[in-house]
């Protein structure tokens, strides 16, 4: 049997060379939508990936492996005395009440920022369609926080809500609210959640506006003609169609909350008062770079990494299955 006799079967292995370098015609594959890859061969994608992989190797994999090794060592900062201590650093963390508290705060912080950021951004993005006058201004205003450095954002919010001098704090006091993030840990937590959400709002907003714009008008209009109200149209048509973006944002928000909020915490509360805002990523920094306790800090990074990976896997397992990527075709 000759090969041409079964043209509908895909090739068993992907060819090394991209289509335009090979003789003969490229075969059209059946996978479509966001997940479909546009490459035919393997070499070109590999070449294109090489710089990024090199950067990852240098700045992620090598440090990560070294960090992993540190987690099992007890050593002085200058490195003259190194003891292998096995799982001791990790066990000490798992026993430590401070670490449990930090884990609890991280979960609380991450869930709160994810939910707050996403829901506010969704409302704002949904409203973008309805804003008829000054739409550009509306969008520009929403994009400003993204252009502000996290440390500056943290500092500005800390100042606004400072109980001694901040105008926002003065306003809260005038309402009879005893606002004091310098002493009250819950107030401080609320402050960093607000700051981090505000900072990340426009990231969510941009993606949601784009996703909403990609929903075909005709489908929504057809639903409207069939008598579905705005809420119903949103719940049954728009939301399922933007589900891939929603899923992506949930993952990104989780990663943001867990890893990228260091600068905001450092500028707003420095983990205080009484470690009430010392989430895991901040604790890693304090123990490693202030306390020079490299072993414990490395062990915390390892645990944080495991934690984040598990969370992402769970999210993929639970949510991604329900999502159809065949939207924009």
């Amino acid at each position, binding site marked *: 049997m000759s090969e041409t006799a079964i043209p509908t079967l895909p090739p068993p292995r992907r060819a090394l060379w991209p289509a335009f370098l090979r003789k003969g015609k490229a075969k059209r594959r059946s996978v479509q939508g966001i997940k479909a890859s546009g490459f035919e061969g393997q070499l070109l994608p590999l070449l294109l990936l090489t710089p990024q992989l090199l950067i990852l190797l240098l700045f992620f994999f090598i440090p990560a492996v070294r960090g992993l090794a540190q987690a099992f060592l*007890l*050593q*002085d*900062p*200058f*490195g*003259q*005395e190194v*003891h292998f201590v096995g799982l001791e650093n990790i066990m000490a963390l798992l026993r430590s009440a*401070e670490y449990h508290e930090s884990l609890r705060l991280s979960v609380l912080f991450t869930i709160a920022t994810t939910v707050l950021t996403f829901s506010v951004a969704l409302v704002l993005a949904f409203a973008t369609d309805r804003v008829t006058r000054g739409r550009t201004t509306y969008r520009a205003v929403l994009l400003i926080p993204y252009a502000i450095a996290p440390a500056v954002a*943290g*500092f*500005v919010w*800390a*100042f606004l809500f*400072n*109980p*001694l*001098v*901040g105008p926002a704090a003065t306003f809260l006091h005038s309402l009879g609210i005893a606002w004091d*993030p*310098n*002493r*009250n*840990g819950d107030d401080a937590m609320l402050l960093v959640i607000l700051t981090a959400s505000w900072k990340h709002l426009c990231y969510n907003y941009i993606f949601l506006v784009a996703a909403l714009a990609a929903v075909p008008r005709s489908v929504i209009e057809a639903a409207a003609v069939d008598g579905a109200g705005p809420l119903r149209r949103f719940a049954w048509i728009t939301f399922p169609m933007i589900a891939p973006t929603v899923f992506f944002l949930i993952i990104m928000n989780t990663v943001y909350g867990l890893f990228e909020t260091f600068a905001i915490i450092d*500028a*707003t*509360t*420095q983990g*205080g*008062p*009484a*470690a*009430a805002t010392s989430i895991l990523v901040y604790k890693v920094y*304090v*123990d490693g*770079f*202030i*306390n*020079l*306790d490299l072993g414990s800090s490395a062990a915390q990074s390892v645990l944080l990494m495991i934690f984040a990976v598990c969370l992402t896997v769970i999210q993929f397992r639970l949510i991604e299955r329900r999502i159809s990527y065949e939207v924009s075709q």
Partner: protein
Amino acid sequence: MATALSRRTVLAAGAAALPLFHVRTAAAAPREIKFWHAMSGVNGERLEEMTRQFNASQTEYSVTPIFKGTYDELINATVAAYRTRTQPQLVQIYERGFMTMLLSGAVVPVQELVAAHGHNINWADFIKPIAGYYTHKGKLAAMPFNSSTPILFYNKAHFAKAGFDKPAETWAALDEQLRKVKDAGGPGSIMAGDYHWSWFENYSAINDYQYATKNNGFEGLDTEFTYNRTPVVQQVGRMKRWLDDGLLQISGAGVSPTAVFTSGRSATFIASTASHSAVMAAGGLEWGAVPLPYEEGRTPRNSVIGGAVLWALRGHGQAENAGTAAFLAFSAKPETQVWWHKATGYVPATNAAYELAKREGWYKQAPTQEIAIQQLMRGEPTANSLGYRFGNFTQTMLAQREEAERSFAGQKTPQQAMDDAVSRGNEILRRFERLNAGRY
């Protein structure tokens, strides 16, 4: 001079067989000594000025000051540099990093270094709480550079309004005064960012309360904290009461406590004497300063220092070490010390420098600048007031602050908070002991 120089050039050229122009610059350019520091703002400029004075005073060496960020960032940078063998000759490390540096194996004790290069420093002349803090096995391990101690600044206008000309000497009397200041419409006091240093550590030294066993760590790495069995517990309780009653305020992120005081929104400010520069620069502020309060019935002792010292790092050639030694000797000269004292508000490190500043009439001009040094020299230091020598001292301090803040927020009683601080602190001390056994 010209012939000596040319002969050296020729000799060096012959020995190194390098192109002539290279050798010329080598012979003409002074040897560079890198000096990493953590002083920003005005004091950073003063530090640079000091290195310029040294560079102008001789031709063999040139000290290059390099700003590396905060004290914490600087000690990290030092660790990283040492591990990659790119360390500078001199680093400025805060007092809490003393044990880490001393036992690091990365340093040359300054007294040895300076003596080995033939400079004469009267080591016995250093002011006791300063020398005591940094002396190990009879020798200064690091050169006192910017030493300070906390004093009490106060707002004269707020005190006058309540009928007082100055703060009382004891904590109990000060408590009453601050309440009256508040009743008269005045503000509370502002808490400094490093309050643990004045309210717990200096409080214990001045009142002669034991902070930890083994003479506060001087006699061995197996030291254990004991401040949960001393009036430090009541001190935490006092802070909590003052916070509750509005007698004490926390500035928090975004606002500097110094600025709260200099803008007149605080009755008192217990802070480093180095705050003088900011306080004096504030226009329209009527202020005064007094020594720190003490507990009724106690004889007040000397306070302890804070600040930083200069460490000479290993791994440099003889000639570079000679330059490091020369700069260290220069920094300890009474003239340099007095200049530094006047320019920055840090205390002079030697008796000779203090006497010189007195003779020059500096304290007639700036009487409050003498408070810190008088407080440091008050009486003979006891085992409880000579200083603190704890490994991982930053970490034990942060644990202590965390627990104290739990008490301020009402989550724990002061006793419970300090018990927990001590047990966490002792665990941290044991970790240090384990790594450094037999090295102290």
